């Protein structure tokens, strides 16, 4: 095996080390923040000002610009949670554990937003704040999965055991993701079918679709930033006795 310290493989392996990840994340985060804010500004302006009203729902449909990205992120982050959980179980990677634990509260927040904004949209359009159809119910279950994961990990004292138990729960719950997505096709639901995430052409006007995609991007970068911020805290906390952390905190002290 090559001992050359500058091969991509060794650089990648080193990335998995806490100080490297901490440093790299710290360098990337300001750029991530700028992109995130730019996407939010563009998406909000596009969605609230530029996009026309809907022929059927009027101005109320504009909740779509926060409801749909939240829902998409609630599922995406859970997929990340499940994937990093599997990786941490199989390869015993500490960083995968950290990303999993960091992602759960953020994913829970997106799920909560999806449910509440959906409610605020459902009341004027459907005529009810809530209905126990397959789509809404499975999304609510997703929230319980997130909260269950967070509670389980918090309840167990040993960090490693806690992560492992949480990982099993996260993996088991991943079966909910296809259920959420296909619920509107497999069963009779009040929630309508997919507008964008289907193999067909999106059934939404381009002027409405573009702000939606911009907001989806904004949410993605928001997740990226938030997750990295949480992982950095986790790294500092679990590595507090190491020399590199000592150097870091003493040099930062003003």
């Amino acid at each position, binding site marked *: 095996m090559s001992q050359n310290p500058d091969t991509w493989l060794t650089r990648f392996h080193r990335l998995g080390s806490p100080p490297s990840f901490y440093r790299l994340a710290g360098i990337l985060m300001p750029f991530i923040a700028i992109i995130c804010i730019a996407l939010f500004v563009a998406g909000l302006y596009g969605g609230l000002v530029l996009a026309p009203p809907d022929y059927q729902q009027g101005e*109320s449909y504009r909740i779509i610009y926060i409801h749909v990205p939240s829902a998409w992120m609630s599922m995406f982050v859970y997929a990340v949670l499940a994937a990093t959980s599997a990786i941490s179980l199989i390869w015993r990677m500490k960083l995968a554990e950290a990303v999993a634990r960091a992602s759960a509260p953020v994913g829970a927040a997106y799920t909560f937003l999806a449910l509440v904004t959906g409610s605020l949209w459902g009341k004027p359009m459907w005529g009810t704040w809530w209905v126990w159809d397959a789509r809404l119910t499975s999304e609510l279950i997703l929230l319980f999965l997130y909260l269950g994961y967070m509670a389980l990990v918090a309840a167990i004292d040993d960090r490693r055991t806690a992560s492992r138990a949480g990982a099993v729960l996260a993996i088991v719950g991943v079966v909910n993701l296809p259920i959420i997505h296909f619920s509107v096709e497999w069963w009779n639901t009040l929630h309508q079918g997919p507008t964008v995430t289907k193999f067909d052409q999106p059934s939404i006007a381009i002027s409405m679709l573009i702000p939606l995609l911009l907001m989806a991007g904004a949410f993605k970068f928001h997740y990226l930033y938030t997750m990295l911020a949480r992982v950095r805290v986790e790294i*500092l906390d679990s590595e507090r006795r190491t020399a590199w952390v000592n150097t870091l905190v003493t040099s930062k002290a003003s």
Partner: protein
Amino acid sequence: MIEFFQMGGYAIYVWPAYALTALTLAVSVIAPIRRRKRLIRELSAIATQKERSRSE
């Protein structure tokens, strides 16, 4: 301008949704930033204490 805030009569649904989203996203991102700063302060205080007790 007023029509914008009225959202076709649906203002009572649209704006609280946006407000709650903004609040939730802001809190999500600010909390870890503040925790990191607090943690660094804590750890540096511990470190300087150790330095002092060592040099005494």
